[in-house]
């Protein structure tokens, strides 16, 4: 990264982007808010459910590159969501070089970003949501959020998500569930929920036995459920049940100190009883699961639990244009996943009859910010919310010298920079960085500010660490994370991608079992990492409490230092995945 403070201003960048688009012969100038016919949906059914998920507090439109590597193995190979690039376009009938191809895949990302612009933004989302709700008329729609609404920016971190509650209220979210929401701890979570006008639903969060014994607060002390598990909403004369499914592995994926009194899990037996109760006792006409399980977990769950019509899924950030039908003992359950970063809005139109859903239409609409006029009230709220930090966050630290992104099973250019920063700033041989699936993308030439640095790193446990680890411990750490990604049983996967590494290379054989996937670990100088030898390792986002400086300061210093990326010491060699359509060719 070059140190860059003066040469390219934001306006210049926009000009450059425009120039690139013209060079490509693209009809960019024709794309404007007046040309939003793409959002004119044919009327269908009698109940419309709008689903957003994993926005990661991205209030403003932005770039987010979809993965070029998203491997599925075994029975999941070649199945959604494990398709990328051309295989993805072919499967879903999307035209290459189209706006949709840009929204849903990583193909020609830089070129297409210049043509089709940024996606998402809450003011744009608000306009789209209002329009789709107005189209069906009052009392005929429902707006749901699948969680990871309150985390993902520096502002969200210092506000502990409070400002996102205001945005959610203005947007009109009627129910949500959670994941990163839990990392603010119980007090902040409850404070936010007191102000949230919708329902926070989670059938799979329970008091621990100790907390129950000490009479800790619970929605239902008899079942020990901490939160309301479900709600029933009447839409167009039909009763629709919405069940919340929070991320099942919060105390495992994150420090347990944030949720000491709560225990999670998938809990599909309890879910089955809940569905049966809603069907048999409450006589609902449709059952929807608002899930933060991740798509692979939802697909397995749909094969086991009867009586759910549609699972509106999130967590794994898979933008899947069509629902996947799953057969179970009770019939068919449709499984969706609605991407991330505010890029998409799921539109589920149901034809509900007495006691059943007779027909379904689903669309996953990309939120092209250039086609939507920002809602004035939401824009004002966003501006007001951002104002106190605006000056600090606007400080330009560097300029992107290449496409910066994170989303990929093994590597991301953003993570490479973080690993470089950890190694140079903390003087370590080796760096480890978590494979989060959130984090903005930046185009070459785009200025990088403190706000941008925080958009890649803002969590409630950002402290870095430096420790000595043996070669065996390093390999075991990689094996453990890799198993979370590729365990053949989706219930044993936590979501997220492979831990990113700096200072060494390795070979990964995803189809192997735990303990046999990771091999040939070699330092940058070509020497093998030895099992019994110790190495100085730097990292962040540890589930154990750490004391080092926050990773965003490490990254900012590194970017400001102007050191070029160290490409020598990175790279994962994949084995046994030839021909897998989860890798872009």
């Amino acid at each position, binding site marked *: 990264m070059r140190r860059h403070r003066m040469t390219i201003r934001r306006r210049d960048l926009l000009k450059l982007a425009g120039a690139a688009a013209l060079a490509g012969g693209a009809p960019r100038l024709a794309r404007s808010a007046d040309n939003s016919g793409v959002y004119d949906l044919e009327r269908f059914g009698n109940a419309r459910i709008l689903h957003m998920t994993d926005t990661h507090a991205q209030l403003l439109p932005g770039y987010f590159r979809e993965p070029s590597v998203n491997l599925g193995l075994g029975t999941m190979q070649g199945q959604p969501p494990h398709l990328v690039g051309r295989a993805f376009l072919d499967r879903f009938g999307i035209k290459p070089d189209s706006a949709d191809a840009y929204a849903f895949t990583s193909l020609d990302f830089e070129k297409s970003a210049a043509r089709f612009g940024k996606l998402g933004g809450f003011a744009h989302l608000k306009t789209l949501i209002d329009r789709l709700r107005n189209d069906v008329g009052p009392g005929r729609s429902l707006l749901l959020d699948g969680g990871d609404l309150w985390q993902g920016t520096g502002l969200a971190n210092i506000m502990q998500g409070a400002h996102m509650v205001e945005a959610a209220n203005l947007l009109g979210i009627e129910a949500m569930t959670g994941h990163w929401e839990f990392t603010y701890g119980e007090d902040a979570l409850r404070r936010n929920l007191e102000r949230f006008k919708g329902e926070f639903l989670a059938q799979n969060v*329970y008091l621990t*036995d*100790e907390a*129950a*014994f000490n009479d800790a607060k619970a929605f*239902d002390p*008899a*079942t*020990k459920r901490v939160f309301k598990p479900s709600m029933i909403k009447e839409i167009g004369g039909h009763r629709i049940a919405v069940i919340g499914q929070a*991320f*099942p*592995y919060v*105390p*495992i*994926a*994150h420090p*347990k100190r944030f949720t000491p009194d709560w*225990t*999670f*899990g*998938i*809990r599909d*037996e*309890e879910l089955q*009883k809940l569905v049966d109760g809603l069907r048999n006792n409450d006589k609902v006409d449709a059952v929807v699961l608002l899930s933060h399980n*991740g798509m692979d977990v939802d697909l397995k769950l749909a094969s086991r639990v009867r009586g759910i019509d549609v699972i509106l899924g999130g*967590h*794994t*950030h898979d933008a899947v244009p069509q629902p996947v039908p799953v057969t179970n003992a009770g019939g068919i359950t449709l499984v969706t996943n609605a991407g991330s970063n505010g890029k998409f809005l799921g539109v589920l139109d149901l034809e509900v009859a007495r006691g059943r859903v007779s027909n379904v239409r689903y669309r996953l609409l990309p939120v092209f910010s250039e086609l939507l006029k920002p809602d004035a009230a939401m824009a004002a709220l966003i501006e007001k919310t951002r104002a106190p930090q605006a000056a600090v966050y606007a400080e330009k630290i560097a300029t992107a010298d290449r496409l910066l992104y994170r989303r990929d099973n093994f590597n991301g250019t953003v993570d490479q920079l973080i690993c470089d920063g950890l190694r140079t700033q903390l003087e370590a041989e080796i760096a480890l960085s*978590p*494979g*989060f*699936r*959130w984090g903005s993308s930046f185009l070459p030439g785009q200025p990088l500010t403190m706000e941008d640095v925080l958009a890649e790193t803002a969590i409630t446990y950002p402290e870095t660490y430096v420790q000595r680890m043996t070669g065996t411990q390093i390999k075991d*750490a990689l094996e*453990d*994370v890799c*198993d*979370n990604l590729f*365990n053949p*049983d989706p*219930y*044993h996967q*936590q*979501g*997220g*991608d492979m*831990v990113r590494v700096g200072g060494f290379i390795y070979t990964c054989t995803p189809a192997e079992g*735990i303990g046999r996937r990771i091999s040939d670990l070699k330092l940058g100088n070509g020497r093998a990492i030895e099992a019994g030898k110790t190495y100085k390792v730097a990292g962040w*986002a*540890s*589930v154990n409490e750490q004391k080092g400086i926050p990773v965003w300061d490490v990254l900012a210093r590194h970017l400001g230092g102007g050191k070029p990326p160290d490409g020598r010491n990175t790279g994962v060699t994949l084995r046994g995945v030839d021909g897998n359509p989860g890798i872009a060719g």
Partner: protein
Amino acid sequence: MRTVHTDLPATRRLILRGAGAIALTGLGIMSFGIAPVFAAANDKYPDDAFKQKGAADAIKSLYGRTAEPSDKVKLDAPEIAENGAVVPISVTTTLADVTSIAFLASENPNALAAVYRIPPGTLPNVANRLKMAKTCDVIVIVEAGGKLYSATKEVKVTVGGCGG
């Protein structure tokens, strides 16, 4: 313990709370593997079984025969342990004449974790916590009517972190 539902009588909830504190003797709901010593007061402590390394050897030492899987044995265990040091594992069964229930973790240094003697007239529901060294099968054996029945579930133990 987590599969408690509202339709259970209030007394059951009180019992479960007691179990959380330490244990109520004589009800077959006890914690931490020390209970079998008391529960089996009239029997010889199965010293040899607890010393066996593998699950098969421990079961053989304890019962002298093998168990058959049964869907009447309901084993409740997490998919992934939130803390490998205290993994909540519980079992209930609809089998009649239950005389003992044993818990094993196949990859622990000594597989047998706990054995409960179930006196006549006791609900055959046991909830306890096992310390698990690593990802492995948790096996529960129910001795009922002189026969052995089992249920098995793999519980993953992970160092955690790095969730999306």
